[in-house]
């Protein structure tokens, strides 16, 4: 009797938890098709106008000058976000991977210290990171803009990539690299043919992770973005004061879909490779 009650309470609680978690997302999805141009929280019939507007297609709002202008700004910030995230992901993946390799494969002085330094940016509060980056850029004379955002994002995303790739490297038997050298492969050949393919899921995972975090970052970017280089999160944050544009629902929906796609690709890559590794482990040592 008591157990029954406990179980019901528990499942009720879980249900509530998931409703809290996903209801807002569900609402955003539904209201992205809302045809009411004035109040986005009142249902005004089904419409694809917001999606059309995002992609610059003709829609029922085309004659409203104010809308068009701010839609351009919205799209501009989306473009900025995408290009910043792409370049950031690329740079931090390369640097993070090389750093992980250096720390895992070579022995040198102060190694533990370097490792600690790499963990620091993850633990530092965003506000602190943002303000210190701002002061840094201003002092050194780098104008605030896309470049400063990219440098700022890389400064902490390198850490994320480093950790993801390091985990992958830690699970890799160093004997494999020795076996490759033993069979006559020089270090570069060994890296290309053995090490890189083995850690590739980690590298791709790190790249996707840094892309998503860069897309998503508000606090740090808020400090270091210039007036004409607003990213999407910063723009949306600013919109709260000027009034929220309904397009935001459509953009959010598209971003969620893109994130799901990226996460799915990441998961697929993670699960595919270790199957061979696990089988290998169960026979070795």
């Amino acid at each position, binding site marked *: 009797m008591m157990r029954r009650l406990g179980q019901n309470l528990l499942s009720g609680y879980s249900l509530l938890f998931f409703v809290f978690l996903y209801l807002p997302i569900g609402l955003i999805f539904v209201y992205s098709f809302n045809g009411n141009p004035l109040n986005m929280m009142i249902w005004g019939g089904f419409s694809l106008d917001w999606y059309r507007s995002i992609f610059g297609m003709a829609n029922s709002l085309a004659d409203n000058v104010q809308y068009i202008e701010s839609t351009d700004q919205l799209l501009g910030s989306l473009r900025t976000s995408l290009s910043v995230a792409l370049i950031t992901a690329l740079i931090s993946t390369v640097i993070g991977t090389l750093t992980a390799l250096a720390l895992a494969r070579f022995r040198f002085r102060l190694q533990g210290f370097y490792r600690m330094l790499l963990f620091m940016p993850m633990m530092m509060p965003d506000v602190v990171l943002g303000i210190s980056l701002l002061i840094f850029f201003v002092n050194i004379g780098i104008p605030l803009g896309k470049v400063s955002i990219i440098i700022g994002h890389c400064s902490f995303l390198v850490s994320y990539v480093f950790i993801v790739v390091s985990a992958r490297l830690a699970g890799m038997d160093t004997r494999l690299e020795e*076996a490759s050298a033993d069979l006559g492969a020089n270090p570069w050949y060994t890296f290309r043919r053995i090490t890189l393919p083995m850690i590739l899921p980690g590298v791709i995972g790190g790249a996707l992770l840094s892309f998503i975090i860069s897309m998503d970052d508000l606090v740090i970017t808020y400090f270091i973005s210039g007036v004409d280089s607003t990213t999407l999160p910063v723009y949306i944050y600013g919109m709260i004061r000027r009034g929220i544009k309904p397009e935001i629902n459509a953009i959010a929906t598209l971003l969620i879909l893109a994130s799901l796609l990226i996460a799915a690709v990441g998961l697929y890559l993670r699960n595919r490779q270790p199957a061979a590794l696990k089988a290998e482990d169960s026979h070795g040592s």
Partner: protein
Amino acid sequence: MSHTNTPVVEIKAAVKHYRTPEGQAVRALDGVDLSVGANEFVTLLGPSGCGKTTLLRAISGFEQLDSGSLIIQGQPMNDVPPYQRPVNTVFQSYALFPHLSVGDNVGYALEVRGVPRKERDTRVGEALEMVGMGGLQKRKPGLLSGGQQQRVALARAIVNRPALLLLDEPLSALDRHLRQSMQRELKKLQSELGIAFVFVTHDQEEALTMSDRIVVLNGGHVQQIGRPEAIYDRPANAFVAGFIGESNLFKARVSVVDDQHAELVSDVGDTLRVRRGELQLNQQVQVLLRPEQFHLDCPGSSDSHAWLEGVVEQTVFVGKDFEVSMRTPQGSQVKAVVRDAARQALQRLHAGETLRLWYASQAAHVLAGGAR
């Protein structure tokens, strides 16, 4: 020796220290000399931690010697990186590349050297055929059993015909049955290929059955190098005697000498009789008697034979033989293996019976020095 006189590998005075994370120095190799002839099967034998892997890794180039010289096929190798040494290794953990197929694993050494695909495929096929794994090129290594992975690792190491093959305890992960058949196959493969093998094991039986020569290592020192029979019959010191085979070892002092024989008294008071050799009166030595050197009855003239007497403590029947454990009045324990005991002899082996164990005095091996 039946081998050609230019050695494949020559190591002189090799010294290697490791530093533990706590900063202590570990002496893994302490002045090791070793030379391996072409087509020779040399086994490094010793307890865990004696430096076998270190010596192997020094040859393959994954460890740098602190001092000493390493010459492979007449070329000094101390400063040559592993990928330029004409040596291949079969790793203890196999170390097959999990993301490559069996065929690509085996063909790796050829691929690295830019051997065209067609020739590579033929040679990979041949190598896999040699280890009894023909036709498995397409498989991924993760899907193979331990024994099969072992064979693939072997094929991968021999496909390019190295001057020397290094094998680090390659059979230790296999079960007993598989291990024995792999021992025979390895030996056969070695004579077919004509490649010198340096084989590492801590299993003395494996070393005795497979090797042309055995190198017994302990604490980074070479204890003895020799043919298996020599190592077994005439161990150089107490460590070798104790590590290889069962042994009864007596610390003893020469008490009586005549032309042919010497009589000795052990530290607890047992009397022993050996061939005189170079022995001097009052010399401290150690005497080794292998369990299978004992007989229940005097097999020849009583002049050339001697005996130990004691009370039987335990007798175990192990197939053909009886393993007898006896204690002398002086307190020494003597282990003997007696074969085909006749019916009435069986009586004598019961626990508590007094038993006389005979041995030929020239069979007793005298080890130099009473110290260990």
